């Protein structure tokens, strides 16, 4: 009886030791892969699909290590989990995945500030499950104010400065808001409607700036407000 107990114990300990050793080796390998940046996931392109299409994220994932990443998944999480699957990612393999965010979720992300999480998860060598989730990557999509060009007309002691800018709406939503333009003592507030997946040219006023101020540099600021909240902002320093 006693010998049976000892045998069970020894067998268990030996197997446990084996598993600990395997896990330790896998952990070393995993950390080394992380250190060499062998896993990469980047947003290659964001496509705005008009109508009820939503937003399409084209994500490029690659692995340059020596192991196998089993059950590799790239996921976007908004309220409910949306997943895009890919089975295994082998050595030196690059795969492009497309994940679509439906229109109904985009409204919540934009107006209610719901967080959007992008991540990937896999079983390292089929043994250690690892998940990396990125949040706050709103700079990659949404609404951006882009300056186009600045034109000057010189007079005796001042310049007439006209700035051209556009608002890029990369969301398939029609957005109504207000544009606030501030430069020196100029303040202009105007209503704007941004069409889905479109670029809107802004009509900004010409500003008369004293020569000495322009030599020091003058800040031109454009803010886009939707429902009282600043959704995009851009400040450009203009100098001659």
């Amino acid at each position, binding site marked *: 009886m006693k010998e049976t107990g000892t045998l069970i114990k020894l067998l268990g300990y030996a197997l446990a030791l084996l598993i*600990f050793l395997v896990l330790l080796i896998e952990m070393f390998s995993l950390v080394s892969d992380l250190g060499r940046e062998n896993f990469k996931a980047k947003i290659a392109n964001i496509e705005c699909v008009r109508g009820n299409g939503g937003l399409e994220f084209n994500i490029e994932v690659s692995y340059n290590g020596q192991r196998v990443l089993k059950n590799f998944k790239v996921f976007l999480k908004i309220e409910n989990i949306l997943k895009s699957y890919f089975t295994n990612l082998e050595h030196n393999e690059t795969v492009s995945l497309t994940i679509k965010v439906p229109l109904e979720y985009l409204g919540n992300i934009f107006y209610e500030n719901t967080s959007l999480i992008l991540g990937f998860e896999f079983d390292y060598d089929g043994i250690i499950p690892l998940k990396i989730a990125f949040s706050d990557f709103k700079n990659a999509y949404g609404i951006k104010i882009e300056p186009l060009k600045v034109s000057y007309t010189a007079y005796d002691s001042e310049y007439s400065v006209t700035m051209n800018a556009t608002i890029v709406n990369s969301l398939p939503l029609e957005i109504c808001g207000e544009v606030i333009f501030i430069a020196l003592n100029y303040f202009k507030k105007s209503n704007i409607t941004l069409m889905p997946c479109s670029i809107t040219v802004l009509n900004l006023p010409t500003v008369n700036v004293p020569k000495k101020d322009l030599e020091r540099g003058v800040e031109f600021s454009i803010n886009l407000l939707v429902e009282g909240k600043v959704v995009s902002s851009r400040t450009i320093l203009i100098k001659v």
Partner: protein
Amino acid sequence: MKGLGTSIVTIIIPLWLISSIGGYFEKSLYEVFKTEYVFTVEYNVETYFAIIIFLSIIIGVLEESNVWKVLGKSLRLALLIISFLLIYTLLGGGIFSRTVIVSNVTAEVTIDLRLILYAYSFLIVLPTVIATLIEIFSLSSLEK
């Protein structure tokens, strides 16, 4: 001495190994992502080691006595089960999740090390419990 040895093999070494793997993972994340986030190791295993060694010595003394042998073995069994539950709680069920900041983007890295806890429970705790129960039953039948 035999009781102390069993406690070292079944509780202290696995706890040290598991906490070392967890600590190694945290340290590696800090180095790999070069984040300024400071990781705090929440478990102070040395205190538990000291308590377990102290209790194991007392239980070991009881096991040496012919009168208190069965009680000593039962207490060792209880210590093993309590230690397992303690390890399980300390390691948050075997899932390590830490937040890092990479290029101003917040990322949450989660590693699932439940396999270690399964290995510990099924290959160390369970066989030890079975072996100790066999010893207790054989001792009880000898006394009768």
